[in-house]
């Protein structure tokens, strides 16, 4: 889950920002943030674009369902979901409003709440409206619900399989909800530029968001399903996107998102601090981690059950671990980032 302490910090910071720092010339850290702002904006814009396409294709498919439209729809789900993975690391600012991050992706879902909620909605006589989705909680409102409708095996063999009317209604309403949220996020991020540039504390928020994302990637999205933590058993169901077989692809997308939207300014920052060798190592480590693909682009269930595939996954895990260490130990110390509590401290 995304850290929640920042919900409180951000609103305080936004107020502070509007009271101070008017029209001053940009300093070094402001330049860094200007770079981050633009990069993240491009990521949010892509998300808005992909989710609009997804909503349109959901509507086309449900109006006149056929195999070709279905295949296109599934591909659009993948594209939109990967666009979200690329900006998923941003855990401060507008994405905190109305728990947008959780709305996009409620995860982990150990109790299969998504399936339970879908069953409840598709089996009830209540018409599926935008208002109903609004009130139905984060397990209904995001990509995992669409993934369930599109890819769940048990569902696809049942009477509720797409394009059953209620399932189609749920599909199209949720895609519109996601598209609206994405548009809102992109607009809000645009308006957020001034407070973001003028508030020094966002420097650390941005650094910490990338560090937390890598930690979640290493621990929750790789180590845990691989059985390297806790009881030592491999379990594909605790990764995200297991239904569509895109768990590993989504890891790649998160890494690419960090590389595109966060890394360039981060490397400059390290160089300014006289840490050019560390910057180079981090850049190389990113490339090493991404080199595991496309070999690792397989469903997590396959990666965990096949010994050869598992070795590929281990390679990816080791690369991500090293990256996390470079970030969270060495770079954090070099940049004086002190990490506090976050919501993943629980169990």
């Amino acid at each position, binding site marked *: 889950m995304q850290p929640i302490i920042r919900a409180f910090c951000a609103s305080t910071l936004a107020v502070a920002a509007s009271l101070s720092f008017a029209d001053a010339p940009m300093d070094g850290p402001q330049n860094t943030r200007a770079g981050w702002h633009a990069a993240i904006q491009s990521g949010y814009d892509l998300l808005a674009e992909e989710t609009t396409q997804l909503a349109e294709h959901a509507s086309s498919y449900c109006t006149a369902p056929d195999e070709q439209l279905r295949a296109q729809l599934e591909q659009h789900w993948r594209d939109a979901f990967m666009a979200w993975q690329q900006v998923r690391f941003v855990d401060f600012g507008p994405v905190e409003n109305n728990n947008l991050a959780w709305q996009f992706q409620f995860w982990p879902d150990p109790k299969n709440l998504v399936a339970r909620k879908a069953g409840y909605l598709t089996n009830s006589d209540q018409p599926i409206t935008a208002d109903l989705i609004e009130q139905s909680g984060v397990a209904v409102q995001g990509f995992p619900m669409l993934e369930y409708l599109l890819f769940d095996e048990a569902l696809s063999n049942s009477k509720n399989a797409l394009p059953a009317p209620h399932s189609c209604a749920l599909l199209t309403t949720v895609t519109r909800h996601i598209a609206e949220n994405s548009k809102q996020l992109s607009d809000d991020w645009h308006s957020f530029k001034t407070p973001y540039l003028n508030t020094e504390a966002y420097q650390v928020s941005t650094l910490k968001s990338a560090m937390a994302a890598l930690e979640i990637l290493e621990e929750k999205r790789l*180590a845990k399903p691989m059985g390297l933590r806790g009881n030592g058993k491999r379990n594909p169901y605790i990764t995200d996107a297991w239904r569509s077989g895109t768990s590993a692809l989504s890891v790649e997308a998160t890494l690419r998102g960090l590389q595109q939207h966060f890394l360039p300014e981060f490397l400059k920052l390290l160089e300014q601090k006289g840490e050019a060798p560390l910057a180079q190592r981090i850049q190389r480590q990113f490339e090493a981690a991404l080199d595991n693909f496309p070999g690792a682009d397989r469903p997590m269930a396959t990666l965990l059950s096949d010994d050869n595939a598992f070795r590929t996954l281990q390679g990816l895990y080791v690369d991500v671990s090293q990256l996390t260490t470079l970030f969270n130990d060495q770079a954090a110390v070099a940049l004086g980032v002190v990490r506090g509590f976050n919501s993943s401290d629980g169990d």
Partner: protein
Amino acid sequence: MTALFRPAPLAITIAATLSTGCAFTNTAAQPEPVTKASVVTHYADVAHANYQDALITAKALDKATDQLIANPTEANLQAAKEAWLAARVPYQQTEVFRFGNTVVDDWEGQLNAWPLDEGLIDYVKADDYQYELGNAGATANIIGNTRVNVGGETLDTTVLTPELLANLNEIGGSEANVATGYHAVEFLLWGQDQHGFEQGAGERPVTDYATGSDCTNGNCERRGEYLDAVTDLLVTDLEWMVAQWAPGNENNYRSELTNGDVNEAVQKMLFGMGSLSLGELAGERMKVALEANSYEDEHDCFSDNTHNSHYYNGQGIQNVYTGTYRRVDGSLVSGPSLSDLVEANNPELDARLNAQLDASMKALGQLKAHAESSDNPMAFDTMIAPGNTEGAQIVNNAIMALVEQTGSIEQAARQLGIEALSPDDAGHAF
């Protein structure tokens, strides 16, 4: 079983009370100045007293369930439920010792693991039972079967002993396979909660423990054996933990903690407070349940006692900061505290954190009051129902109060020279 009131806790209580008393009187000798070392020692005293209370109330629970098994009447079932509720009061306060103290974290799963797939233990109504994905043991029904096979592991469950149940924990590698602890007992007393967001907890009939033809849902004798074994195990487990915190033993955890690096010990105290406050209580236990409207994420789902679990978690956090603990017999344990240390360096921060801890207790108190209201009760699972704005507000207030206090806990850590709040390298070794 009879509860053992040992002399040790009493002596500590009196000594602690006297020394605090002395601090405020002019006639007595000057008290020892508060140091990190004295704060850590007193922290161990508080933990010891708290675990002793957990043990005392667990023994009372064990006794009450023994009576229920011997004589399954409504009154005895009610008495057992009340004993369970009473046992949760001290135990939930001990959870603040969990994060940071690996000796507790490694041990607590056997006592308080949650959520659990109750179909492992006993019968469930299948159409309203959601279990953890990929859990091969979710419907094993140990009470109903003398052999269980979970994901290739076959176990003989003919004789239900405490050792057997301990071994069945996490069978098949799923953390949701919880065969033991408070929530297993809770399920055996209340049964599955089939009310969803509606008012009402589990409704297990007392005849589930009846003999002969009065027995409902089958296997009543085995159900009694299970309940007996699982409550015995709870008592033994708590005895072990009390011993870990007892003074005068060179080889226990208390000795390791108080003789180790004092800054590391202070870090553990603050880490425990912050982790329980933010990640666990505000996050996992409240925000996830609320935002997903998920009663499956409700903490004490069979008994609808979640409000008290949350309330006493919050109390535990305050206990550690203020160095005070109200024992189940009403006596007060108090002594040198983190609050004293912070106050000496930064009285403003100390006052703020104390006010925030009070505010959190007030917000959690609201949650408890609404759940326990006699005329219009609203339990936690009703508060988190879709569209319940009043309920959501109550839960959100508690979340926000906990989030705010966590910010000050971080500041208190820095004030005391503790920079890194990550516990050891737990979970990062590879």
